[in-house]
């Protein structure tokens, strides 16, 4: 009987998070100009790096990690402002507060939304950067994917809480970088280091410390937010 109750709670949690995610994705698809902005940002950043480095620069692998993570991070910033801040601006936050949904499910839905938005950006940034700047990750493709997905997941978790905190402040858009920048280095530094190592041909063993830090950071953030998020959402 107890097993059934806990199973139902887990199912409800995922269903609720899924509904929040669908709602946000529907809203995003209605605002197509935001998607176009992401695509333009991705191409502009790649072209800028391309002009800066010149065609077929032999040292391009030294700069790959920065060139990939800077635009991914900026796309994340776009996602942060569309998380909870948009709910507050539209007045729909009250609806979320009174809805029979656990705060953790709301946070999970918002996190997955930011995660998908950033993954969408990364899907454009990485291949276009490889094509424009003439480089490849050779046999490290899977490891690069692992590092990037883990890094983006961490950024999405941070982004969703930053967005939730920022909705209470007076200058919402301005406070987001001030709030997120101090929390992001915990994941950005290891992600950049690991991508940089993989770009010059390092193997799995050499990026284990960075992966460990990213996993530990993710678990620590999720555990902290699981306990504290209801204090952010409800008065």
């Amino acid at each position, binding site marked *: 009987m107890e097993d059934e109750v806990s199973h139902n709670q887990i199912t409800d949690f995922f269903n609720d998070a899924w509904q929040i995610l669908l709602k946000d994705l529907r809203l995003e698809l209605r605002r197509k100009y935001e998607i176009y902005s992401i695509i333009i940002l991705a191409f502009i950043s790649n072209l800028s790096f391309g002009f800066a480095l010149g065609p077929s620069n032999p040292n391009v692998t030294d700069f790959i990690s920065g060139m990939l993570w800077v635009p991914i991070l900026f796309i994340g910033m776009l996602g942060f402002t569309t998380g909870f801040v948009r709910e507050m601006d539209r007045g729909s936050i009250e609806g979320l507060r009174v809805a029979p949904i656990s705060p953790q499910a709301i946070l999970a839905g918002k996190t997955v939304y930011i995660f998908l938005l950033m993954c969408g950006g990364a899907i454009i940034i990485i291949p276009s950067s490889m094509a424009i700047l003439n480089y490849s990750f050779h046999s490290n493709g899977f490891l690069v994917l692992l590092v990037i997905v883990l890094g983006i997941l961490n950024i999405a978790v941070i982004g969703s*809480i930053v967005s939730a*905190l920022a909705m*209470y*402040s*007076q*200058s919402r858009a301005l*406070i987001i970088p*001030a*709030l997120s*920048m*101090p*929390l992001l*280095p*915990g994941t950005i*530094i290891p992600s950049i*280091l690991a991508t940089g190592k993989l770009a010059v041909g390092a193997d799995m063993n050499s990026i284990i*410390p960075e992966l*460990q*830090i990213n996993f530990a*950071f993710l678990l*620590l*953030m999720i555990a*902290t937010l699981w306990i*504290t*998020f209801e*204090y*952010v959402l409800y*008065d």
Partner: protein
Amino acid sequence: MKKIYPAIVFIANLAALYMIFLWAPPERTLGDFYRVFFIHTPSAWVSYLAFTITFLSSILYLKTRNFKWDLYASSSALLGLLFCIITIITGAIWAKVAWGLYWNWDPRQTTTLVLMLAYLGYISFRMAINDKEQRARVSSVLGILAFISIPLSYLSTIIWATIHPMPLIPTSKLQIGVEPAILQTLLTSTFAVTLLFLWMFYVTVEMYRTIDTIKSVKMENVK
């Protein structure tokens, strides 16, 4: 005690200054420049202590909703930020003398800067919220999240290759040979700076309490 404590702080810091500049012998390679280390290490310790107080006070505020804890959290974060800035400046001076550059992108240097930014963000965030209850509640969550930077800062020298000296009181087989006079000076200066922090903490809490009282009296007069 209120009157005696500042005198104790003054005497302890005077004794520490005497030991730092006159009693401790010059170091073999760095000469007298190494004395900045007696300000750097205690400041780093005090900033960690202050941020831990912010973290614990934030938890206690969320649990009890007593504004006293919010007052402790914000006062401690402000002082922690001050000591963190001192740590970064003295660390940069040390780095210039020991390694030739003020900034070496060493993991400990970088993560300490991140720590400083985290609490600068915490203080800016508090300033951006007008409602007292909302500010206390939401910034308590940020006070807990910002604390995650501290283990990262401490572990950075263990995980990544660093030129920063390892912890002075080693936990493993590492044993660093420190002259007794240097160790005694370090302990005295750490004790003196901790006393100074506690006194500053008391004064800051009282200052914020007075500001709160003045604000509430003003509000009552307006009504």
